[in-house]
């Protein structure tokens, strides 16, 4: 973890605590007021680039209040008093965690770590063709394999359609159809399609024609056949 900070304190609480510990004081109102000058000196030397100075100033204000109260005891206000109590409590709590962190540091410095069992990397079954094998070799091997396959595992040969219809092609077709006859029904157009894919493309092409305002679509009622007319 990289933290480059030249200052030995990180935040206002850290600084306050450091000053109090340096003076061998406990966390009390009196000791807080005693370190006010030192705190202010540190804060005035802060680099806004590395520290959030505002956080430091809030506490500075409380310290100055404490100091002025020592000189003019009459200025005590309940609100400020509560803030001082709050600050003292916070410092006390912070100190506990800082002490605990010191303990953590000591433990870490013993370098006594436990390591988990290393699970071996999962064996991934990938195929790497032996050297010198080409596509045509693999093809002939595959053919041989198919031939030797038990009869019951063989499936009926199915011819895969190699048709490639694009919406553009279909649009051109439809244009011809509409040129020959101005009116058609949706079902009659679909009936012309040779396959499911062809039907889908036909539908898409019709949508395209509607969008381009080349044809008009009308339906007399729900689920009735749709009439198409070229404009």
């Amino acid at each position, binding site marked *: 973890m990289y933290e480059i900070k030249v200052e030995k304190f990180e935040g206002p609480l*850290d600084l306050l605590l450091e000053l109090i510990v340096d003076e061998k004081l406990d966390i009390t109102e009196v000791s807080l007021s005693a370190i006010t000058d030192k705190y202010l000196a540190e804060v005035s030397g802060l680099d806004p680039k590395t520290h959030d100075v505002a956080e430091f100033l809030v506490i500075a204000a409380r310290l100055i209040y404490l100091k002025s109260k020592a000189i003019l005891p009459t200025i005590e206000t309940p609100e400020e008093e509560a803030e001082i109590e709050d600050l003292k409590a916070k410092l006390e709590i912070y100190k506990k*965690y800082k002490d605990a962190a010191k303990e953590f540091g000591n433990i870490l410095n013993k370098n006594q770590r436990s390591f988990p069992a290393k699970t071996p990397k999962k064996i991934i079954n990938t195929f790497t063709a032996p050297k010198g094998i080409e596509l045509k070799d693999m093809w002939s091997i595959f053919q041989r394999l198919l031939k030797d396959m038990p009869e019951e595992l063989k499936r009926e040969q199915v011819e895969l359609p190699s048709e490639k219809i694009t919406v553009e092609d279909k649009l051109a077709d439809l244009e011809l159809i509409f040129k020959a006859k101005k009116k058609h029904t949706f079902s009659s157009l679909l009936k012309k399609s040779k396959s499911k894919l062809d039907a889908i493309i036909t539908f898409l092409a019709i949508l395209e024609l509607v969008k381009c305002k080349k044809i008009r679509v009308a339906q007399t009622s729900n689920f009735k056949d749709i009439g198409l007319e070229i404009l």
Partner: protein
Amino acid sequence: MKKDNEKIKSFIESILLVAEKPVSIKELSSSIGQMNSEIQKALTELINEYKNKGIKIIKKGEYFSLVTDPENSEIVGKFLNEELRHDLSDAAIETLSVITYKQPVTRVEIEDIRGVQSDQLLRNLMIRGLITEVGRKETPGRPILYGTTMEFMQYFGFSNESQIPEFKEPVSEELFNNIDTIT
């Protein structure tokens, strides 16, 4: 079917060895097909049996892991060619201590205690796997709740939560009683 205790222990050992993550009692009991109480009993015995062995079963909450004895870390580290000296900054350790004792805890709560922004530190600790998101606080904004991980236990060489140094909440009453002695 109730299985022999020794057999259950043997199953647990095998599962913990291959597990990639800490394993809970619940997971063990469903894999082995035994009651939680049987698993718990077997685990307690196993942990005891490993007392003088180079491997240990460590526990965090409901989860268990099979790890090397932290006292062997020097040798193991050398074998693994791993740097043992920790590289956490004081601020990171401090943040870790706050999370350890306050978990589940939100970023704002951590920052309130430390009096300084801690988001970057939290991110780094997360990447290191020492802390993780353990849930969301049901308050406006549903902030992330952070907690320590099994890796945290391993990093410190703790074998269970009772080995984490005890934390004493400060008693604020005492603060006021001291004033006279200082002046």
